[in-house]
């Protein structure tokens, strides 16, 4: 029983109304004060409440129930309420122990496109070279679009219990947003129109968008696609004809390395739990390869642009060097893919075979 006294003339009027709404019992006796007997409703509301796992990443549960929904991990969750559909709700499918650390690293490594790049540095290049830069940037933008949309889609399906995975995917999408910005800005910096976009390139990326399985999407995008892009961005860093191109590709490469690390860590985690995973990964590569068999692969304009960038001119000798450099790029991409496949437990011969089936569009 709670006795209430106060000086507001409307205290009794309001207290009576408030008690009624809150399920408490109001009494205006004894004189000059009021008494409240506590109702049961508040205690009843928390009947059957449960903790949504533990707050620490080490205390996650394997299958968080749908009704935990958006509740903070570790919160005391009232029973009932909506059960939003987060279909990626299995720890063994989405989790990687490395996720919290990778997220922290990603959050600390965010850079500001306005200041991280010296936009005033010269981009005064021969016409053909600049055209090649614009074409490569156009291609990168297209690929980064896919790389932004895919984690964003997956993020919306991950149960919030696996917060660090969501955070990591969110930062990954934000990384790609910055990449889109800097690549576009570099492409347009000399006033030329954007380059070309081939149907085959978009077809290749579309097969990534269509992959609904979290692990397979992560495998195709991060491990194989972005893994190959690490080599491509390294190549562009090495052969960049101007400081701005070098800076934007270098900045992007650091971010992409993190994306690849999460993809590999996640799949390593899963491969240890699921002996069927490797078979499914293999099938995904083969399926994608088959669906792209009749497409043109890498946009020929992109291929030419890469050669020109590595050559530096149209002199035959330079073109020969440029072509050799692009061949070496292909080899480097293949080598990287094979290493990562081996890390996931594929024998060397199978890794080589699967790497060879990867899309000719790189991503």
């Amino acid at each position, binding site marked *: 029983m709670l006795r209430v006294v106060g000086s507001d003339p*409307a205290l009794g*009027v309001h207290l*009576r109304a408030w008690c*009624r709404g809150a*399920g408490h019992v109001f009494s205006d006796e004894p004189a000059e004060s009021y008494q409240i007997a506590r109702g049961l409703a508040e205690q009843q509301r928390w009947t059957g409440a449960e903790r949504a796992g533990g707050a620490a990443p080490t205390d996650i549960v394997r299958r968080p129930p749908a009704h935990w929904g958006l509740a903070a991990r570790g919160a005391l969750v009232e029973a009932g309420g909506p059960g939003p559909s987060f279909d990626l709700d299995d720890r063994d499918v989405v989790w990687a122990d490395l996720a919290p650390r990778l997220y922290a690293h990603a959050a600390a490594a965010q850079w500001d496109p306005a200041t991280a790049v010296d936009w005033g540095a010269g981009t005064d290049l021969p016409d053909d070279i600049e055209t090649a830069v614009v074409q490569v940037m156009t291609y990168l933008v297209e690929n980064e679009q896919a790389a932004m949309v895919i984690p964003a889609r997956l993020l919306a399906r991950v149960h919030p219990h696996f917060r660090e995975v969501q955070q990591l995917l969110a930062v990954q999408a934000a990384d790609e947003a910055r990449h889109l910005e800097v690549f576009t800005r570099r492409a347009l910096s000399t006033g030329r129109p954007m380059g070309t976009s081939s149907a085959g390139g978009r077809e290749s990326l579309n097969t990534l968008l269509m992959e609904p399985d979290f692990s397979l999407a992560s495998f195709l995008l991060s491990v194989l696609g972005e893994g190959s892009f690490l080599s491509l961005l390294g190549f562009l860093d090495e052969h960049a004809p101007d400081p701005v191109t070098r800076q934007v590709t270098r900045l992007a490469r650091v971010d992409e390395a993190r994306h690849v690390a999460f993809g590999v860590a996640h799949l390593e985690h899963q491969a240890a739990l699921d002996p069927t995973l490797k078979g499914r990964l293999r099938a995904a590569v083969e399926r994608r390869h088959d669906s792209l068999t009749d497409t043109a692969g890498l946009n020929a304009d992109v291929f030419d642009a890469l050669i020109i960038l590595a050559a530096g001119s149209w002199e035959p000798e330079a073109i020969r060097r440029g072509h050799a450099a692009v061949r070496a790029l292909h080899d480097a991409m293949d080598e990287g893919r094979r290493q990562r496949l081996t890390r996931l437990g594929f024998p060397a011969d199978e890794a080589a075979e699967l790497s060879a089936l990867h899309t000719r569009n790189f991503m």
Partner: protein
Amino acid sequence: MPGTTLLMGAVAYDPKVVTIWEGFRHYLAGKGLPFDFVLYSHYERQVEDLVDGRLDAAWNSPLAWLRAQRLAAARGRTVRSAVMRDTDQDLTSVVVVRADSAYAGLGDLQGQVMGVGAVDSPQATLIPLSHLRAAGIRPDEDVVVHRFDVGVGLHGDHIGGERDAARALVAGEVEAACMIDGNHLLFSQEGTLPAGATRVLAQTEPYDHCNMTLVDTAPTDLAEEFVELLLAMSYADPQVRPLLDLEGLKVWRPGRDIGYTALDRAVTQTGFYDERGGLTAKEYIP
């Protein structure tokens, strides 16, 4: 189908009424009670259908309950208040004035304009005006009554009339305004009545509000089961809690009819209904 389904009437004073009774229908069906509901646009037709036996039960306003009693008695039928919400018991209405006014009691409102709710609002019109009469002040003679007719036919379920009266008080268009105690709290919290701008001049005795009225033509077994299932609803049940929250209660209480004396007096004083439940109120077109 009469006799095989318990059919209840409710007035659709707000779109949420559909959500509420759909929820109850689903819940009651899950408990094995064949239950359905019919929505009305105002209380008068609902009460007539109840007493005519077209409904078994009606979620009635206090005014509708009184009319149901009168209509039923005139036809040799009986109705009973079967269950009510905890929030339907022991309400009061208040007469509110601006804090800086000189009025010290109801008698000081002589010759002034008083804002009330809709013509058929128990809490913001009928009961407060009856309270004035008890204090010796004749509405429309000693005070000018300014009615804010919003949602006529909904028996005051629509909050609009009370809110308009409160706004008129703040704007200086009326010298006093009548409302239910909970709405004085609500209007103060939401800022319709600025903090400290008003004070309570008078408060009525406690009275009761809505109830679930059952008519004696309702199938006895279904009616009893209906009442038992409602009374058994627990706020501790996570499936039930959202329904109770929507309908604004923590627990159903057994119905009672002792809390309608003040309104019954007001109905008789104003001739709102005649003794047989006939609709005789002036300027009332639901």
